[in-house]
């Protein structure tokens, strides 16, 4: 089978789920005739028609609200945020309506909210965000952020079939830059399960999304210096897979967290605490983190380059940690 991009893998998941289940519909700005700002939904309107692929007004709260209502009647709406940054416009619908619904009154919200996220494409302060932690801090949501095409497809299928509101982040830097051969047939990847991408004995790099690829590159560099890093791809940030994480820490005794999200309140802090709670006696060094700066995402290339973590910074931190 031919290799496909992350973007194409996502499109395939939507296509196959819509074929499989007529209760799956798409809503979003320019998702229909235009096929979405990044063309993720290209061709879906032609195939599934006006009722199932709905071009909406520029009204993020209305789009998410309507999806919640559709979910109450047993449909499985998939909402596209044109850029994930715009999710701030519908924060109330996501965090107060959708997230609390099942807990408060037993009404599940089987909705997926997906959108292009992340920096590295000079999108500036409003088209580059990684807002995942607002939602990781919201009980009732699930938060998924895949790093590879095969995961993206399998995780999106699981998200659509899940009975809860799932936020599905798609790193736009990866959309067309990575390719992979996908497993054949109808497969899913379970939510809430991390994966060991590279085995190693000296330290564990915990990461996700675009930084997963950065971390793998760093691990190759380190290997040439005799440092064997294990790389864990979280894939789902909420709920977090504690078992995979702790098993690796118990093996390597050292943890480095690498994420593209900003530093303060990023998931690195949560992971450090989980490790303290669950594997403190196994630690041979501090839990370190490599993250973006605590600033908005700047626009000009040299500024954005300074803002984003990179291979050198991950490798440097790993070298420092390996010395303990």
């Amino acid at each position, binding site marked *: 089978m031919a290799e496909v991009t992350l973007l194409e893998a996502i499109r395939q998941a939507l296509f196959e789920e819509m*074929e499989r289940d*007529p*209760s799956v*519909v798409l809503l979003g700005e320019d998702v*229909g*005739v235009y096929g979405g700002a990044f063309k993720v939904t290209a061709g879906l*309107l*032609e*195939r*599934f*028609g*006006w*009722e*199932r692929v*709905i*071009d*909406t*007004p520029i*009204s*993020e*709260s*209305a*789009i*998410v*609200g*309507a*999806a*919640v*209502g*559709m*979910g*109450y*009647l*047993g*449909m*499985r*709406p998939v909402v596209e945020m044109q850029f994930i940054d715009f999710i701030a416009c519908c924060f*109330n*619908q996501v965090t*107060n*309506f959708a997230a*609390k*619904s*099942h*807990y*408060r*009154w*037993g*009404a*599940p919200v*089987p909705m997926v909210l997906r959108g292009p996220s992340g920096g590295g494409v000079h999108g500036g302060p409003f088209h580059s965000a990684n807002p995942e932690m607002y939602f990781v801090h919201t*009980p*009732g949501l*699930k938060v998924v952020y895949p790093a590879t095409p095969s995961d993206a497809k399998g995780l999106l299928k699981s998200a659509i079939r899940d*009975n*809860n509101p799932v936020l599905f982040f798609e790193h736009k830097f990866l959309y067309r830059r990575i390719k992979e051969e996908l497993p054949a047939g109808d497969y899913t990847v379970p939510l809430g399960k991390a994966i060991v991408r590279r085995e190693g004995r000296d330290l564990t790099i915990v990461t996700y999304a675009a930084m997963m690829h950065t971390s793998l590159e760093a691990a190759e560099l380190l290997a040439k210096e005799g440092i064997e890093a294990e790389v864990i791809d979280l894939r789902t940030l909420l709920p977090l897979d504690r078992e995979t994480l702790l098993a690796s820490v118990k093996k390597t005794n050292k943890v480095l967290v690498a994420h593209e999200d900003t530093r303060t309140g990023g998931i690195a802090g949560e992971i450090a605490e989980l490790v303290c709670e669950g594997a403190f006696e196994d630690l041979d060094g501090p839990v370190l983190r490599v993250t973006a700066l605590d600033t908005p995402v700047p626009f000009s290339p040299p500024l954005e380059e300074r803002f984003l973590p990179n291979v050198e910074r991950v490798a440097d931190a790993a070298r420092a940690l390996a010395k303990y």
Partner: protein
Amino acid sequence: MKFPLTREQHLELHYYMKLNRTLEEQLVRLFRQNKVVGGLYSSLGQEATSVGTAYALEPRDWIAPMIRNVGALLVKGYKPRDILTQYMARYTSPTLGKDGTSHFGDLKVRRVVSPISMLGDLIPVMTGVAMAGRYLGQKIVAMTWIGDGGTSTGVFHEGMNFAATQKAPFVCVIENNQWAYSTPVKRQVPLHDLAERARAYGIASYIVDGNDIVAVYETAKEAAERCRAGDGPVIIEAKTMRMRGHAQHDPAEYVPKEMFDYWKARDPLDQYEKFLTENKLWDSRTRAEIDARIDRELKEDLEFAEKSPFPPPELAEQGVYCEGCHKIEPDWHRPVEELLPPKSSIEALWQVEDFGGLEEAANAAKPAAVSGDGARPPANKEQRAKRKTKAAKAKAPVRSKARR
């Protein structure tokens, strides 16, 4: 009278309204006895709007009540005990104590969506309910209520606009009760009639005396029929008055006494009881029977609520996610083949008829003629012309003539 009521229906309307009134007066007593947990939000004085609008719907229709719509919940089949236990935070309440007040619902039988405290968010949610009902072929209407203050939110506008573009079968009842907490409606909205807002969405609207339950019922019935016929969403403005403070802690000293007097003279329950007597729809015996029934039901339910336990603390940890506890399956009333290829497949192109220039704008009440509105595939010319006439008719706000 376009939608005549039988004697039984008249008496039922009275029963719900009186039950609404008596239940809330009971809640005030419980509040004073410190038996209500948290705030108490009263709909005293607004009962005709809640009961009359909800009563106009079919059992298969969906509602989403706001905090002052206890009456609508009663019409949908909830019992006083449900509301009492919610306010008293008991384990026997519909939310098991996880939420209070009117914040509960039922997707399966009563078709009630729980509100959240933030105003306006139900507008798009019920738009989605209406769209899903149509998608599944259920021929339902969705209804929610919002206060005068709630129409100031951005999400009200987003939701109404989306509902209008989708022609969703959705009725939005604006309960203009004159006060948004302590702020008078004039400081919220620079309009005399909130129904005017409908013009911004190109949809139909009505203005009705919210304290006249028969007028409210008839207006809501007409609005619902209009939705069911596929004419798109409707706004009803019901003019009424919040006869208490925002919540029980608020003595509402900011309201001029004369304003309370004005509305006291237009009390919805007093007016309706007078109407029933004048029209010989009841006698003193029937009236006494209704009162006795309400007293009995309330007494039983109050006893039930007071005897009910608080929830076990460990419940706090449960139910964040649906982990297979609910089965999600839509109730299809149309062949799904219509929604799957090859039947669903189309040519994905906008059909633009109007280039948007100034001279075309002069061409009278012509609605934006972009087809493929998400609800229906692009129509042929003849169908489009028909739709346009319908939409033009829907434009001007209608002052409801529904009087008894």
